[in-house]
Every structure is written in structure tokens, then in C-alpha cells.
């Protein structure tokens, strides 16, 4: 009996411990990260954006990236509803979507995708098959149903095409890949354009639907005589068989990173500016001898005036966002090759940089804005200590601070010997997540000047006649972990005591009846 109770109490304590640990950890993560950029949208660029998330830590340790690959449609929705800092989509915004935005948006092509026709036919070697757009359209319309159809045989006289039914595989869910594929089919086949059209999901006349690139790939691999479409990156990494496609110049082009890049370079001179409508931009069936015909941009979406989105609440965050994007389209492109993405050609990078220059925050261009000049005066330093740790506050003003006091878990009180504008740098170990600055009962406007991993710099004006300013923040020493541990310890002791003395507490202990 006795051991039962004890075991149970320990069990409960353990569960409590496990459940509270993430709380303290997230509090710590919150205290350490400077700015978090939230994005959502297309799944296609996710591996690349995720790579950027990791690599950008080396460039800007204070800026954290959080990207949810929920699909282009969801990305556009969240971007429109201003719940994320940037959106990502595989299809450009159409007229309807543009008109429902709360402000003007810019398109920033951040990578390029191409789609291949993958197949599984015994006897046809890898990349041996040649196809044209109209033939693909007829296959996906259900008009060509046999592999040994005369139209296919004419293009591939040397291949042993079997007299078997073609199994068409397409995506079941809406996807950017489908958008690219149906855009291409619409461009090359009037019948497809009239009967089906282009979109992230369409009413397929025939075939099997499978979930995701993986689902389509698996279905093709396990189904003989199947044909379907997958992202080039996916086909390359999984080693699928895929077809050469005839381009506008009449060449049969193997889908590769290079031939896709050629298509983009050929289309680059015709691209609109970032803030113009991109709804008609299409890389499919591009000009050029070397161009692979089924390619498309994937876009990042930003508001031209970043303050349209209340999530972007400071010029620092606006700058962090634009800095990240401009890093992604330049230095970030070097990670593309390894992940089988097509790096942006130079013309597109230049176009993007022009677009970024036009982005403003509260009417001011974000790039090339310099931080506000420090107030006049002399630097000063004051130090305080609490529980054996000392904290140093530095600042600049025409007067100096004489004293710093920490009121644990409430606020930091700073005493000045004058009034006027002051810039203060406060260590994060002492105070973090600064919310309000108060002189007596009056709340002062304060401006966040900069934030690093270890300190926050704020600027405010000490009103005439006051000398004492209280700064409140989300975290003030003693650190939250300590408080959490205290609560936890109390909880554990409480639970153990309770179960021991009550026997049957909360139904978890075993009473005498057992």
C-alpha cells in the first residue's frame, strides 16, 4: 500500500515536471531571440526556405525565421489576413486576390521550379521517352489511352512501346505543381484550355489522384504503365524516369536545372516590376533553343508599405525582413543547387533588388535608412547588483543617471539628475521584452532603437520635473526559470504530501479500501 502511494506520487510529480519544462524553455527562447519573421505558404520552396532558416542564423543570429508550409492558398489567405510577415505562393496573385488585399503587394520570385512528366513503363529506358505538349494534354484528357498510340510511336520510333493502357496519375490536393502543369497544358492545347483550364486544383477528366509529390511518385513507381507529373527536384532526388519535352523552338529538352534556368533567362526581359500585376507571368513554353518548357517561379509576397501589416511593428522588424529577403535572393541562392532548386538568373536578382528598394515602412524606404542619430550628450554608465550578480546600464544624454534599482519581478527604476532625451542600453539578463516606460503614473513614449542577443537599446524623453523612471518588461530578474522551478518544487512537495496524508487524493492514491 505504502509503496503504491509513493510510486504514484512520484509519477504525478514526474508528469508535472515534464509538462512544465517546455514552459520554462520557451520562456528562455523568447528571452533570447530578437526578431522573429513569420511566413507561410507554398510547400514547394519549403526545403530551400528551411535551409535559409538555418543558414541565416550565421548571418544574423538575432533574426529567427519561422516558415509554415501550408500550401500556396493558405499562404495567400494568411498574408491577406495579415497574420504572417510574408507569404509564399507558387502561382502569382490573380486579379481577385489582389483586390482583396489590404494594401499593395510585391512579388519577389525567390526560386524556380520545373515539373517533369515521370513514367513507369517496362522496356523504356530512363529519359528515353520523347513527348510533346499536345500529346501530354491528350493523355491527361483521356484521349490517348494506349502507350503504342501512333502519335507517341511517331516521336519514339526506336522504343518498344507496349500495347497497354496508360494510367494517368495526378495530384489529389491543390498544389502549385498542378498550377504549373495545367498552365502548360492550357498553353499548348486549346482543348485543355477550354475543357479544364489552369488552377491549383482542376476537374481532372481521368486518372488517379495521389497526395503530394511523394504520393504521385509512389503511385507511379508501383503502377505499371503509369504517367504523372512531379517537381523536378523530387524526380531528381528519387531517381524517377522522366520524359524529354519538346519546347517552342522544336527541340526535345531534358528537364535539368540548367534547361530550367535557360527558360527563366529567356523570359526575364518580359517580366513586370515587383509591384505590378504578375497574374499573367508565366515561364511555360518559354522561347530559346535550350529552354525546358514547364517551369515556373515561386514567389515571396510582401506588402509594399510594410506597416500595412500590424505584425511588422517597428522599423527594426521591417529592416530585418527586407534584409532577409535580399540575402535570400542573393547569397541564399548558393544553397539552391544542392537541394535541386534552380538558382535565380542575374536579371531576376536585379529586378528583385529594384523591388526591394521600393519597399517602405511608414513611408520611409526600408533599405538605406540609417538608424536615428543618438541624442546629443555624453555617454554614462551605472551599475547595480542583485543577489551577487551585477548589471551595467549604459546610456547617452546631456545629463546622467545616478542610480539603478531592480525591483525583482516588477520593474527597473532608474534615477536621473536631469530631464530630456536619453538613450539607454539595458542588459537582457536584467530586463527583457520591455513593454512600458513610466515616470510616476505617466507613461512615456519609448522607441526601440536596437536589440541584440544580450541587450536592448531604447530611447525616450524624461519629462521635466521627474527624475525617476520605471521600466517594465516581460521578464525582470529573477529569471523566469527560477520562478517556474519554485512553483514546480512546491507542486511536487504538495502532491507528495497530499497523497501521503489523504491516501485517496484526487483519485490517484489508493485508499484503505484497496
Amino acid at each position, binding site marked *: 500500500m505504502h509503496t503504491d502511494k509513493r510510486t504514484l506520487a512520484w509519477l504525478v510529480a514526474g508528469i508535472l515536471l515534464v509538462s512544465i519544462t517546455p514552459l520554462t524553455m520557451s520562456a528562455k527562447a523568447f528571452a533570447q531571440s530578437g526578431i522573429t519573421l513569420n511566413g507561410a505558404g507554398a510547400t514547394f520552396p519549403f526545403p530551400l526556405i528551411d535551409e535559409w532558416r538555418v543558414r541565416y542564423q550565421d548571418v544574423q543570429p538575432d533574426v529567427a525565421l519561422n516558415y509554415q508550409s501550408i500550401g500556396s492558398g493558405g499562404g495567400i489567405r494568411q498574408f491577406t489576413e495579415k497574420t504572417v510577415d510574408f507569404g509564399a505562393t507558387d502561382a502569382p496573385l490573380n486579379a481577385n486576390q489582389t483586390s482583396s488585399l489590404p494594401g499593395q503587394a510585391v512579388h519577389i520570385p525567390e526560386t524556380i521550379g520545373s515539373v517533369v512528366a515521370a513514367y513507369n513503363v517496362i522496356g523504356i529506358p530512363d529519359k528515353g521517352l520523347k513527348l510533346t505538349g499536345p500529346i501530354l494534354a491528350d493523355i491527361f484528357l483521356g484521349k490517348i489511352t494506349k502507350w503504342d498510340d501512333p502519335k507517341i510511336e511517331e516521336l519514339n520510333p526506336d522504343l518498344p512501346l507496349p500495347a497497354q493502357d496508360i494510367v494517368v496519375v495526378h495530384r*489529389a490536393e491543390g498544389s502549385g505543381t498542378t498550377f504549373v502543369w495545367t498552365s502548360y497544358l492550357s498553353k499548348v492545347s486549346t482543348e485543355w484550355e477550354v475543357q479544364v483550364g489552369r488552377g491549383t486544383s*482542376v*476537374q481532372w477528366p481521368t486518372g488517379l*489522384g*495521389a497526395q503530394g509529390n511523394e504520393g504521385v511518385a509512389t503511385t507511379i513507381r508501383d503502377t505499371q504503365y503509369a504517367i504523372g507529373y512531379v517537381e523536378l527536384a523530387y524526380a531528381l532526388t528519387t531517381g524517377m524516369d522522366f520524359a524529354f519535352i519538346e519546347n517552342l523552338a522544336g527541340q526535345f529538352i531534358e528537364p535539368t536545372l540548367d534547361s530550367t534556368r535557360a527558360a527563366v533567362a529567356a523570359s526575364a526581359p518580359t517580366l513586370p516590376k515587383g509591384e505590378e500585376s504578375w497574374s499573367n507571368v508565366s515561364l511555360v513554353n518559354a522561347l530559346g533553343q535550350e529552354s525546358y518548357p514547364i517551369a515556373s517561379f515561386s514567389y515571396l509576397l510582401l506588402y509594399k508599405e510594410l506597416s500595412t501589416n500590424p505584425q511588422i511593428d517597428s522599423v527594426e522588424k521591417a529592416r530585418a525582413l527586407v534584409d532577409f529577403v535580399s540575402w535570400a535572393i542573393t547569397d541564399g541562392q548558393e544553397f539552391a543547387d544542392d537541394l535541386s532548386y534552380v538558382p535565380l538568373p542575374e536579371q531576376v536578382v536585379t529586378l528583385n533588388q529594384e523591388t526591394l528598394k521600393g519597399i517602405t515602412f511608414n513611408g520611409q524606404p526600408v533599405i538605406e535608412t540609417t538608424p536615428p542619430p543618438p541624442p546629443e550628450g555624453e555617454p554614462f554608465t551605472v551599475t547595480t547588483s542583485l543577489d551577487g550578480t551585477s548589471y551595467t546600464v549604459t546610456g547617452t544624454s546631456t545629463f546622467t543617471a545616478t542610480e539603478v534599482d531592480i525591483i525583482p519581478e516588477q520593474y527597473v527604476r532608474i534615477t536621473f539628475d536631469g530631464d530630456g532625451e536619453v538613450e539607454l542600453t539595458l542588459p537582457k539578463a536584467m530586463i527583457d521584452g520591455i513593454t512600458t516606460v513610466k515616470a510616476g503614473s505617466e507613461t512615456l513614449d519609448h522607441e526601440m532603437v536596437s536589440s541584440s542577443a544580450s541587450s536592448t537599446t531604447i530611447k525616450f524623453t524624461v519629462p521635466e520635473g521627474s527624475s525617476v523612471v520605471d521600466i517594465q518588461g516581460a521578464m525582470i530578474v529573477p529569471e523566469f526559470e527560477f520562478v517556474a522551478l519554485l512553483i514546480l518544487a512546491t507542486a511536487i512537495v504538495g502532491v507528495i504530501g497530499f497523497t501521503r496524508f489523504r491516501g485517496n487524493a484526487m483519485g490517484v492514491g489508493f485508499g484503505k479500501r484497496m
Partner: protein
Amino acid sequence: MFLGKKRKGDRIFRWVVIGASGYTLLMLVLVAFSVIEGAIPVFSLEGLSFFIGTDWNPVEGRESYGALPYVIGTLVTAGIAMVIGVPISLGIAVFISEIAPPKVGTPVAYVIEVLAAIPSIIYGLWALLVFRIWLLDLIERPLYQAFGGTLPFFAKAPFGLDVFTAGIVLAVMIIPIISSISREILKAIPNSQREAAYSLGATRWETVRKVLFPYAKAGLLGATVIGLGRAVGETILVTMVIGNALGIAAIPTTLFSQSNTISSVIASQFNEAVTPFHSSALIALGAVLFVLTMGINIGAQLLVSRMVKVVPGGRE
């Protein structure tokens, strides 16, 4: 003093219990409300023909939505699952509770319970990667070769991703559920019933058929309805193996046709439903599913109550 304390506890208990049951009612009302509200745009576009329409075209400018193919797909797959699953489930239940010695019955029952706890996504993956290929090679192709020319039921070259596969995998999923509930129900039959039957000289089969089944009819029907509910609402497993056809192509004309169920259409398309009509149409499908499952449950309730009244010797 002791009594007073107890009365107070009783009052609190009463309110807690009332609150808990009020929660279910509130949930029902809230779900109904938001589903109907979300469905309004598509009904303004399609009117009531949404229910009988067969188009599903989310391409902007050509939008047109109809729910009929998915209602049919849902009923057909659930129907196949029941036809295959119910007899097997009852067989398992009878075996464990009536025939097997405890040494065999207990482990079998345990395994069934474990199977019932496997998440459906696991069945789905297994079905997509392994089972459908067995099914294709061992059942579908032979059936097609034997009857494809004569019976319209089998007149389509099978690929392994179709209503037949979906139905069978659903059956595999619901068998553990139905059989473990049925076993409990059969176990609850008083031994006097069995002893009476055997003492009258009834064989085992006669006992099961003429005594046990009639006695437990209502309970067994309830178990079946729970299985049916699972089969109708199952989403991800079906999405993986049904072939996900859309529009008129999703009305299964043969056993080997690709189709789609209501919940799998919603699951596949909701993320990328870009236009307001598209997402509204998906919510309206949700409303149809809501009505469908409610209809099934109410129908089952009526059936159970009628059975209990009509059959003498039925429980209570």
C-alpha cells in the same frame, strides 16, 4: 454537519454534470451554425442543385460544385466495408466468446484490442505501399480477367487504387472495432440462455443463431452502427487508396473505378482552396456529411427500438 457537507457536494456535482452535458449540446449547435454559415456562398452560387450536381470545377471563372459523386462514393465504400467487415467481425466475436477455450480466446481478444487502437494512418500507409499491390495481383486482376468482359461490375482495368481497395481497407480497419464490442455484448448474455439451449439439444450453431443472436440483436446492431460511423467518416485512409477522382468521374461505375468520399475531398482540397466558393463548397460538403451521419445514427436508433419492441426475448 457531515450531512450538510454532503448535500453541498451533491449540489456541486449536479451542476458539474449538467454543465458537462450542456457542453455537448452547445458543441452541436456551434458546429451546425458554423457549417451552415460557411456553406451559404456555395448555395448562393449553386442553389439546391449542389446536392445533386456532379461537377467539381474549382478553376476560377468556371466554378461549379456538386456533392452527389462524393455522397455516392462515401456510401459505396462504407457499404463494401460493412458487407465484408460485419460477417467477419461477428465470426471473430462468436469464436472468442463461444467456441475458443480461454487459453486461445484471451490472446486473440487482446490482439483484436491492439488492432482497434492502431491509428488509421498506419492502415493507410500499409494499404498504399503494400496491401493494394497484393490486392491488385491476387484479387482484382483475376476478377477482371474472369468477369471483366461479362459483368459490368468488373468492367474496368484495375490499378489497385479504387473503391474496392478503399472498401476492403476500411473493412480491415473496422473489424477490430465491431468484433471487440460484439464480443463484450455476447459475453454479457447470461449463461442460463446457453444452458437452456444446450439442454434442449440445440447444436452450437443453433444456439448461436436462434438464441444468442436474437438475444443480443440490439447490441450487435449498435456495434455495427459504430463501425459504419467510423467507415463513413474515415478520412486519411480513404484518401490514400481511393484514387481521388473529381466530378462526374468520381461516381463509381464499376468496382475498380476511382472515386472520392466526402471527407477525403475536404481533406485533400481545403489547404489550397483559394477562391471563397471553393472553400465554401468544402464546408457545405461537411454539412452534407454531418446530415448523412446523423441520418445513419437516427435510422439505427429507430431500428434498434423497433427490434427491441418486436422481438420477444430481446434485451429489456
